[in-house]
């Protein structure tokens, strides 16, 4: 389509203006507000005991969620690609389900399943507090991150086919050996990409986690809950800006990591 110069400039101005007002200026402003009182103030604000506890809790949740997602995600992808069983279509649909569910609805569903009075409410009697405890936050994060590893590994499995695996097993490799030596190396970049997505989402999840957390500062607050409670409960706007900037730094690092991984995957 040939456009005249004024028309092109007009379109460019509208597009860039929209992006500047919606994304660029707000983000620049929050960075400026976080660092305006000096880097020292920023560091101090993200190193309070409550903030450190929140960072630790967020990382702990990531540390629990990632291995579970790797094991079950790869297992699910293998079952979906290699398996032949009734109900496969259903399994496909279930894997994508978490993408369609609002985070708040995730929280409500988990409360109704695991909370006192819920279907599995009995576990509380056994001394395992799921809702308003760490297990609840882990389960909520698992729910929202479940599709990532599956959906990144699945296409790679399709692509590599089964010839090499068959060759390995013909040569006498056990199925474990085949998995470790052939399948896993082949899917490693897809798997890594899925893990990065999982980490990013796990660190940033808010709606599902706030529903199932008791939200006590220093105990059951993740980084995202800290941002919220500093702004709403403590009226500490600066603290909220600083914690948000920290989260933003983590998110941008993830984004950069993904760009690098993407290049690696395409040159593979």
């Amino acid at each position, binding site marked *: 389509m040939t456009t005249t110069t004024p028309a092109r400039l007009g379109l460019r101005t509208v597009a860039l203006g929209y992006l500047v007002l919606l994304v660029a200026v707000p983000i620049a402003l929050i960075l400026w507000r976080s660092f305006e009182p000096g880097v020292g103030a920023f560091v101090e604000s993200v190193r309070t005991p409550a903030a450190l506890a929140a960072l630790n809790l967020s990382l702990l949740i990531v540390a629990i969620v990632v291995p579970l997602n790797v094991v079950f995600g790869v297992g699910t992808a293998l*079952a979906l690609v290699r398996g032949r069983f009734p109900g496969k279509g259903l399994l496909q649909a279930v894997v994508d389900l978490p993408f369609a569910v609002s985070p708040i609805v995730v929280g409500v569903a988990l409360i109704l399943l695991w909370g006192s009075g819920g279907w599995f409410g009995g576990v509380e009697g056994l001394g395992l507090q799921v809702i308003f405890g760490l297990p609840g936050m882990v389960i909520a994060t698992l729910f929202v991150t479940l599709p990532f590893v599956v959906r990144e590994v699945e*296409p790679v499995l399709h692509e590599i086919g089964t010839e090499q695996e068959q060759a390995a097993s013909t040569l006498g490799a056990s199925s474990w050996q085949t998995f470790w030596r052939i399948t896993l190396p082949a899917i490693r970049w897809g798997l890594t990409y899925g893990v990065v997505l999982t980490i990013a989402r796990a660190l940033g*999840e808010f709606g599902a986690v706030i529903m199932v957390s008791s939200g006590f500062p220093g105990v059951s607050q993740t980084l995202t809950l800290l941002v919220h409670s500093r702004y709403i409960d403590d009226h500490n706007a600066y603290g909220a800006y600083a914690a948000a900037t920290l989260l933003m730094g983590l998110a941008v690092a993830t984004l950069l990591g993904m760009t690098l991984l993407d290049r690696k995957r395409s040159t593979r």
Partner: protein
Amino acid sequence: MTTTVTGGRGGTDVSALPPSPQPPGATPPAAPSSEPVRPAGRSGLGRVGRPLGVGVVGLWLSVMVLLPLAALTVTSFEDGWGGFWEAVTAPVALASLRVTIVAAVVVALVNAVMGTLIAWVLVRDDFPGKRIVNALIDLPFALPTIVASIVLLSLYGPNSPVGIHLNATQPGLVLALAFVTLPFVVRSVQPVLIEADREVEEASASLGASSWTTFRRVVLPTLTPAIISGTGLAFARAIGEYGSVVLIGGNIPRETQVASQYIQQQIEIDRPVNAAAVSVALLAIAFATLAVLRWYAGRGLRREEDSA
């Protein structure tokens, strides 16, 4: 039930980075049906390991995903169909659903226009710093939603340096939703525009069509499936959104309270049946949207196959 067909719904929240910027309507790398038939013998998991593996995976997905949603659905009908209906049509619940849907429709339309425009500028225009602008598009997916809320409040909230106060207003709601849904249309239209055949456009122009006519008659029809898919995904994301609206929305019943905030409030005042009923309504809207998108994408593919 969504991603495979539509490219990448990213996710419902926070760092919902789109798995990979596939064009909408793109088929997954290999459809199961096109797989070559292989011997049902050993591959991947061993002969013994496989049924066991499927069982474990099935159990895992059931406990993690299906059972919570089943508990939700059953609870919503605890007082029968009448109780469900009453909970969903309670004035404040209905108002929150209305606010949610109206805001999501507005945001979807804004995205359809602005997303297409931005994609066009990113593909067809050239200016210094274009790569940075391109990277900026993914940021809303990468940022946690609560950060999106804080970020927008710092410019449009009570401490606004430019004196714009959208805190606790409907425009504020739309702004927050526009922020988190920005990438959907841009990222679905962009690859189609890159692939588009420019010779047809040139032919149209050389035959005397104005650029507007060329856009409307030649470019737009090619882009329509991508625009619709991106807009639909943005809408589905917007109706369930919570984190980005929680600070800037204001949570004023009948005005700016969205359905997810209403649900959260009902849980807080210990009305689980009401919360579950509105949750089920929200889920139904999301599923219906995604089902329509899936049907639409499938229809497009079938047409392509027919004409090929």
